[in-house]
């Protein structure tokens, strides 16, 4: 069953198109990632789905409810965690949680089971004001508050931005266990390496969805073999790679450059022969980022 449906959703701010005819579906109980750089339109999509703003065109449904006509029903059934910490900094951890429970007509005790795993980590600080918590703690509290009314669909807007690596990993673990409870989760992130943690992802760039699929299938759809190369002078190497006719694409990825060749192994041989200095080259399987860059170039 489809839990979230978008049909041709568009939204502009003044003359800038934030999202442009977006279509995708999210199945019930899916952990769905919306992946794209800052300014791609992720937050706009989330704000439309959580009924905070109205789309200019198109239709969208959350748990079967129309986002414009049935916004009241949606507000009862979804949980939303904005990208910016949006709880009351001057209320304590416990006060925040019980406030959000009470406005949904429930109590902490009633849904304690759902948030227990997360809440126990911040419970020692329950009398501390939310503003005085560390970044990772704030994140956990915000997640608890978004979950306390047992939402059917959970929207998490860049939950891991600005969070340290350990907390990020912990956060994804929490999402996986929530998924087991049957909650449909939409999460947005600018980090490509988090794509593999989702069941299904949509790659978004400049308001356009470039592809929607499982991470595995997106990777296997990558048309060319990818190689990682390394040399003593990486920037000179990159210039050389980009200047060569044999090289189709060359992008810097930390320690390595990822490249593809325009004419298969033949061009690789030709390129390697023409090399002036030693270079380490190895065959790798493409990452989501490779796919993203590839799709971006194809879209332009």
């Amino acid at each position: 069953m489809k839990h979230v449906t978008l049909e041709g959703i568009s939204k502009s701010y003044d003359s800038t198109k934030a999202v442009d005819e977006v279509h995708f579906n999210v199945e019930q109980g899916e952990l769905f990632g919306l992946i794209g750089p800052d300014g791609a339109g992720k937050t706009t999509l989330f704000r439309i789905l959580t009924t905070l703003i109205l789309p200019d065109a198109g239709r969208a449904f959350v748990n079967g409810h129309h986002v414009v006509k049935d916004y009241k029903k949606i507000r009862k059934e979804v949980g939303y965690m904005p990208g910016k910490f949006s709880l009351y900094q001057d209320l304590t951890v416990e006060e925040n949680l019980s406030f959000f429970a009470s406005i949904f007509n429930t109590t902490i005790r009633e849904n304690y089971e759902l948030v227990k795993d997360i809440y126990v980590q911040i419970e020692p600080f329950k009398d501390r004001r939310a503003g005085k918590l560390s970044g990772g703690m704030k994140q956990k509290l915000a997640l608890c508050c978004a979950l306390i009314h047992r939402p059917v669909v959970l929207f998490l807007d860049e939950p891991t931005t600005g969070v340290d690596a350990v907390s990020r990993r912990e956060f994804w673990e929490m999402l996986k266990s929530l998924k087991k409870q049957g909650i449909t989760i939409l999460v947005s992130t600018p980090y490509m390496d988090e794509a593999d943690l989702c069941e299904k992802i949509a790659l978004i760039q400049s308001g356009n969805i470039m592809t929607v699929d499982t991470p595995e299938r997106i990777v296997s759809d990558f048309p060319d073999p990818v190689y990682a190369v390394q040399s003593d002078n990486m920037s000179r190497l990159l210039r050389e790679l980009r200047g060569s006719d044999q090289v189709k694409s060359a992008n810097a990825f930390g320690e390595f450059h990822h490249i593809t060749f325009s004419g298969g192994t033949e061009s690789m041989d030709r390129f390697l022969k023409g090399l002036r200095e030693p270079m380490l080259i190895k065959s790798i399987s493409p990452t989501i980022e490779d796919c993203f860059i590839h799709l971006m170039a194809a879209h332009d």
Partner: protein
Amino acid sequence: MKTLIFLLEKEFHQIFRNAIILRMIILMPVIQLIVLPLAADFEIKDIKLVVVDQDRSSYARDLINKITSSGYFKLVDCIISTEQGLEYIESDEADVVLEVPPRFERDLIRERQQEVYLYINAINGTKANVGGAYLSQVIHDFNGEIRAEWRPLPSQRSSPKIEIVSNNWFNPLLNYRVFMVPGILVLLVTMIGSFMTALNIVKEKEVGTIEQINVTPIKRHHFVLGKLIPFWVIGMFVFSIGLLIVARFLYGIVPVGNLLLLYGYLALYLVAILGVGLLVSTYSQTQQQSMSLVFFIMMIFILMSGLFSSLESMPPWAQVMARVNPVTYFIEVMRMVVMKGSEFKHISSHFLVMIGFALLSNFWAVFNYRKTN
């Protein structure tokens, strides 16, 4: 209904946790009511007087003695040249220069009339006005005295004279504070009501908490009521401290009229003024913006309310502005009920106008709130 209670609970939690706001609520009325009435005292004393006495006669001396003994004037210097007198005004060492011309006494006796000259420093308009008026009054009295002196006794009956004896109603001693304190109380609740509401709502926008609230089933009117009710209560509380404690025990002001009537009007007024705060919050995105906007509106409201200057002496366009200003009406009601003991029938039109203001500000705010969302 239950949602509203939870919202109020949260709101009061936050207000009572904010040490600065809490102190403001208690201390602001007390301090403002102690300081402002003392400072806003328009009684003019110690007018600096320089006398240019070019006559040096006994009449001139009598006049000067009479002026200085009135208690309003402080004799700075007694000189001969007019130029020197004007220098005193230029250096702001004198407020008024009185020039007694040469042959004052001789011409007065011989020609039965003489002139004295007044030079008034009008940089401070009030002081110039009042000082000039006092001085004219004293000279007028002096004139009367010498006329009586010259007149042969029996003819006293033949010249009829009207003497004015005035009686100041509602404030017999013309005590300035009795007049100012009720007005300043209005100023207090106005500031608290408008600033706190506007800031509080915009804070939710600025911090982003409104985002989280908007995704919940909280209804808009619940949210707005949850914001208005706490400040309505605080406004009532602050007013009570001011009226029932500070005004009563420090200034001895006990309202002549009905307290319930006064509170009834306050309750309505607060709704109107909180509506202004709400309206400002719908137009601003940051606390800084809302602060500037409320400040601008409140400056005009307060300066054009007849608190410091009398409405009747304003130019017609300013009187029109004062009439579209809720603060004006509450100050009038305060003074009428506290000083005069006016009853409902005397201020029923004020009630009607305030109902209009309350409806206008709140509906405008709600309308605008809807549009931006």
